[in-house]
């Protein structure tokens, strides 16, 4: 054994050998590394610690810079760690903090090593151990080593104390109960005169305050003192960060800090501190006009600076200001616009966002014009960035800022012709969406669509295919507004359509079908050749749109009594003669005949439909074309009927469909869904929240159709907002808060109760009202989206839900952490100090629920319990989130009450808390020496 060990240590390659060797390998790097790894695997098993540690060092190198797995060495690293030599320890700690993670199996074995080193007399060993702990701490390690970290928090070696302060943040995060032990010492360090310690503590608090600012409001006086006294810029920046979180919660605090911050703003020469001041003012003190003015002045200095960093940050600060003080952007308009052509893409994007922030309904067309010109000139990436932001700004809140839709639709057409444009899908969606929602724009839409369709060059650009699909659809759906349907037909059937993907080709064919039916209908059913009636087109909106110009009343009434809108205006400029119809039919047969054998089912099926229709009508058409004057009574009527039937089928108007429309489909009688699929609840729990939202706004789809559109501006919109506003008012009256509209939701919710609400199943009918209340209640946190508007609103809702899912994990941790902090600071008596983590959070939530009982009505409470008992975890998360928000107000009240009590009472209660604490502590294994009542009072 001694032989190979000696050989190993004498001839072992050092790290430097490896590095040198690697640098000399030009091609065989991988081979070299695997050979080295092989050696390492052998060496690391050596009993000689020097050999072992060198092997470990080499391995760390390969793992760190060449990303080779080193998990196999976990146990060896621990062995090296036990070496008495500092150099070995260092290598081992390095390797461990590099490679260990929560699921490393030997993590359990490290606790004692760490503890030993944390108690070491060599401060560097302690420091290494702290460093390692900060990296690999998990719940167990954090719990087991809390006493050691606690002791180090008041170590008289400043070097160790500040490191312990930094590590304590990790320990808190992993094991919130440690807050009860360590928090007081941490707060004591806030009064330390050493700037290094102070900075470490303030840093910890600024990180903590990011997660849950409210808990640290009681410490505001200490922070205020630091803010005013500190001469150290690093500390000032951190304190500013804390205040930017605290100030929005407590107006009096904001009032107090605004002056010192303005002083800093005026006097500091350090750019980073200056920037932090600006950011604090614009994010958290935006209601103090003078402070904002001052900050914006400084931002302007940033904007005109040579340094691109300052320029970028200046633009970013402006973007934050813009939310509340748009004037700040307008004042700096020139710089912003100039930055659009900056060399730096990041600056360009920032300025683009600012430009978009300035958009309003008055200037949208000018700004879009300017931006489209920029887009024409810029590189593809930025071009699409511009187009994307125009599209998203204009479509915001259902085209809120667009007044002139004709202009917007032609802009969409123009944008799709920009060479670099890759936003085809978005343009497609908007074209269709506008077509559905805005009745007045349809003639213009058809015109734009026609321009796009007849240009054969566009068919070659694959990014435009989706736009073309929208154009084809619009021209088919609204063909009655077309000036020349025959031309449209030719465009739809042109040979180059073979370049389209088959799904879009199918749309083309279907549109051709609609156009053909329209032509036949105008020609035969409406009687002979059509006189151009384009003048109708220009009638004022609102008058003409709902008036249906029908020359064939009787049949229309017979066939579809509920169809109110049939081909509004006919404005064909080219007369449709029977001859042209014959040509049209021939064209269809010629163009689509070859597609009968298409491999794509969609295409094939549509072609068959269309050709079948042609077969059906063609003989008749030919017949009538020959004997034009002869009014054929027998057969002619039959064909007319067929045409009429098809026309009616197509003329039924399509409306926008909410994403959650399916949720509104009523449950058929006798279909027992819930009982058999009860088990699915667990799995499908996540899907529940969106659907529970949907039934709060009513009107099933058929109903919508049945309504006549008296106000054609944005039909679905106005209809639903009218409805929703009246309902909203009603509910406000009833509940004092503003809830979601629910008149129709009663009706719908009967059919579609929330799936995971078994108690309500039986007595739905009696409780419909309650249910509405509950759903409204459950929606309170998400009340922002307006349910009156179908599509975009639902998208917004989905986003909210996603966010909840994403936040799920941190939240649970924060909850317990901030809960613990709050307990320490506010001295909550009802939570015993030695609770496991899960216990603690349960306690907290139950406490919260208790509070809730006072503020919400019992129905809600029972419902919440039901849901909490259920397995739907997302739902619960959602709810707890909501709860928390709702609770802000009562808690705040609490806080204010507290503040209003006079000094004496505070003194008394403080002493009481301290006494109480000491009683609690008695149960703990730890002897806590610091019992001084450091819970500070509120500022002011």
């Amino acid at each position, binding site marked *: 054994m001694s032989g190979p060990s000696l050989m190993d240590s004498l001839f072992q390659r050092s790290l430097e050998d490896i590095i040198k060797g690697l640098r000399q390998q030009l091609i065989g790097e991988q081979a070299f590394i695997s050979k080295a790894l092989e050696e390492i695997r052998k060496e690391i098993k050596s009993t000689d610690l020097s050999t072992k540690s060198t092997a470990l060092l080499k391995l760390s190198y390969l793992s760190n810079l060449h990303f080779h797995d080193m998990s196999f060495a976990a146990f060896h690293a621990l062995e090296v760690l036990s070496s008495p030599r500092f*150099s070995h320890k260092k290598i081992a700690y390095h390797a461990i903090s590099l490679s260990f993670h929560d699921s490393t199996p030997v993590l359990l074995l490290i606790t004692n090593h760490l503890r030993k080193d944390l108690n070491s007399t060599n401060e560097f060993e302690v420091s290494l151990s702290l460093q390692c702990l900060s990296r690999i701490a998990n719940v167990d390690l954090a719990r087991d080593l809390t006493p050691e970290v606690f002791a180090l928090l008041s170590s008289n070696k400043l070097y160790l104390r500040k490191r312990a302060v930094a590590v304590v943040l990790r320990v808190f995060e992993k094991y919130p109960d440690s807050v009860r032990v360590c928090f007081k010492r941490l707060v004591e360090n806030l009064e330390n005169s050493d700037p290094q310690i102070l900075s470490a503590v303030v840093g910890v608090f600024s990180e903590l305050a990011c997660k849950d600012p409210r808990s640290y409001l009681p410490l505001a006086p200490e922070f205020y003192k630091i803010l005013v006294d500190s001469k150290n810029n690093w500390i000032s920046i951190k304190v500013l*960060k804390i205040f930017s979180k605290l100030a929005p919660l407590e107006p009096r605090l904001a009032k107090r800090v605004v002056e010192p911050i303005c002083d800093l703003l005026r006097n500091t020469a350090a750019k980073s501190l200056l920037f932090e001041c600006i950011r604090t003012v614009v994010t958290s003190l935006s209601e103090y006009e003078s402070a904002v003015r001052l900050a914006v002045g400084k931002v302007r200095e940033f904007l005109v600076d040579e340094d691109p960093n300052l320029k970028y940050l200046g633009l970013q600060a402006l973007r934050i200001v813009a939310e509340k003080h748009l004037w700040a952007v307008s004042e700096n308009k020139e710089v912003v616009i100039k930055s659009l052509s900056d060399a730096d893409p990041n600056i360009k994007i920032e300025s683009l966002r600012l430009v978009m922030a300035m958009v309003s309904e008055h200037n949208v067309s000018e700004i879009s014009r300017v931006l489209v010109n920029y887009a024409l000139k810029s590189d593809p990436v930025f071009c699409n960035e511009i187009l994307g932001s125009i599209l998203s700004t204009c479509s915001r809140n259902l085209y809120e800022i667009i007044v002139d839709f004709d202009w917007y639709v032609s802009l969409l057409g123009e944008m799709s012709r920009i060479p670099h444009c890759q936003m085809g899908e978005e343009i497609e969606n908007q074209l269709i969406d506008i077509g559905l929602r805005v009745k007045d724009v349809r003639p213009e839409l058809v015109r734009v669509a026609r321009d796009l369709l007849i240009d054969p060059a566009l068919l070659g650009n694959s990014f435009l295919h989706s736009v073309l699909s929208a154009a084809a659809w619009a021209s088919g759906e609204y063909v009655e507004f077309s000036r020349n349907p025959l031309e449209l037909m030719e465009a739809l059937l042109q040979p180059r359509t073979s370049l389209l993907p088959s799904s879009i080709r199918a749309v083309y064919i279907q549109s051709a079908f609609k156009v053909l039916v329209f032509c036949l209908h105008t020609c035969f059913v409406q009687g002979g050749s059509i006189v151009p009636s384009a003048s109708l087109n220009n009638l004022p909106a609102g008058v003409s749109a709902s008036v249906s110009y029908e020359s064939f009343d009787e049949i229309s009434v017979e066939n579809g009594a509920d169809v109110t809108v049939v081909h509004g205006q006919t404005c064909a400029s080219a007369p449709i003669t029977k001859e042209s119809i014959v040509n049209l039919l021939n064209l269809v047969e010629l163009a689509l005949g070859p597609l009968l054998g298409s491999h794509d089912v969609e295409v094939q099926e549509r072609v068959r439909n269309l050709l079948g229709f042609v077969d059906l009508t063609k003989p008749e058409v030919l017949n009538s074309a020959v004997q034009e004057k002869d009014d054929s009574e027998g057969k002619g009527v039959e064909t007319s009927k067929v045409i009429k039937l098809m026309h009616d089928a197509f003329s039924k108007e399509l409306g926008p469909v909410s994403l959650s429309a399916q949720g509104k489909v009523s449950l058929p009688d006798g279909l027992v869904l819930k009982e058999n699929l009860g088990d699915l609840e667990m799995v499908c729990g996540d899907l529940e929240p969106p659907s529970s939202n949907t039934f709060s706004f009513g009107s099933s789809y058929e109903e919508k159709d049945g309504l006549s559109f008296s106000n054609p501006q944005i039909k679905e919109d106005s209809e639903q907002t009218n409805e929703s506003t009246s309902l909203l008012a009603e509910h406000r009256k009833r509940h004092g808060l503003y809830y979601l509209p629910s008149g129709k939701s009663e009706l719908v919710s009967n059919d579609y109760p929330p799936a995971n609400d078994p108690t309500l199943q039986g007595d739905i009918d009696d409780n419909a009202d309650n249910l509405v209340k509950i759903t409204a209640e459950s929606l309170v946190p998400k009340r922002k989206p307006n349910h009156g508007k179908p599509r975009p609103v639902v998208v917004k809702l989905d986003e909210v839900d996603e966010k909840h899912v994403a936040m799920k994990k941190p939240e649970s941790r924060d909850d317990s952490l901030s809960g613990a902090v709050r307990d320490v600071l506010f001295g909550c008596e009802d939570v015993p100090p030695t609770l496991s983590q899960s216990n603690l959070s349960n306690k907290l939530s139950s406490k919260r629920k208790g509070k809730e009982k006072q503020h919400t009505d019992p129905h809600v409470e029972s419902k919440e319990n039901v849901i909490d008992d259920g397995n739907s975890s997302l739902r619960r998360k959602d709810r707890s989130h909501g709860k928390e928000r709702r609770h802000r107000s009562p808690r705040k009240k609490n806080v204010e009450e507290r503040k209003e009590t006079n000094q004496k009472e505070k003194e008394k209660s403080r002493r009481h808390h301290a006494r109480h604490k000491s009683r609690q502590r008695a149960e703990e294994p730890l002897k806590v020496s610091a019992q001084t009542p450091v819970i500070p009072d509120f500022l002011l």
Partner: protein
Amino acid sequence: MRHNPEEAQRHQKSESGIPAFEAPENPDFPFRLLSRMIHFVLLISRQGKVRLTKWYSPYSQKERTKVIRELGGVILSRGPKLCNFVDWRGFKVVYKRYASLYFCMCIDQDDNELEVLEIIHHFVEILDRYFGSVCELDLIFNFHKAYYILDELLLAGELQESSKKTVARLIAAQDSLVETAKEQASSISNIIAQATK
């Protein structure tokens, strides 16, 4: 140490091209201690080679390579006179080029970018002081030392030590601890003792 003449030449060039070391330190911005949430630190050479990585947030080995590939692509392709900040996956990466090396640190959206630039500069100055006009080769061959220096400077992603002098002193003290241990280990008597064990 610079056994490869070609390499040495190349690096001599870059050595002379470190202007930032002479950059005047902002007088009223003393480097004191400060804490910060830095998610990771990367040193990437101009050729895209990784010279040092330090992860303060948990990333798996796979994610690490992905991050480096992505960021390397983004940062190396940026021109010289652009701003030093890159938006990346909802985070912000602050980078600065010193000679042939890019120093990158990843922070949260609402952290102070200028402050991080100062930290990077601070780190570079400490390296410079320790190695004596540092160049990329120094970092390549003293990979672990650069690491230890970074560890003195940052802990748990937060700046620990803002005085250059103190860091130098701390590192020197630890180096001497290591050296004595090494001497012991490599002394002849030790080897004989081991051999005859």
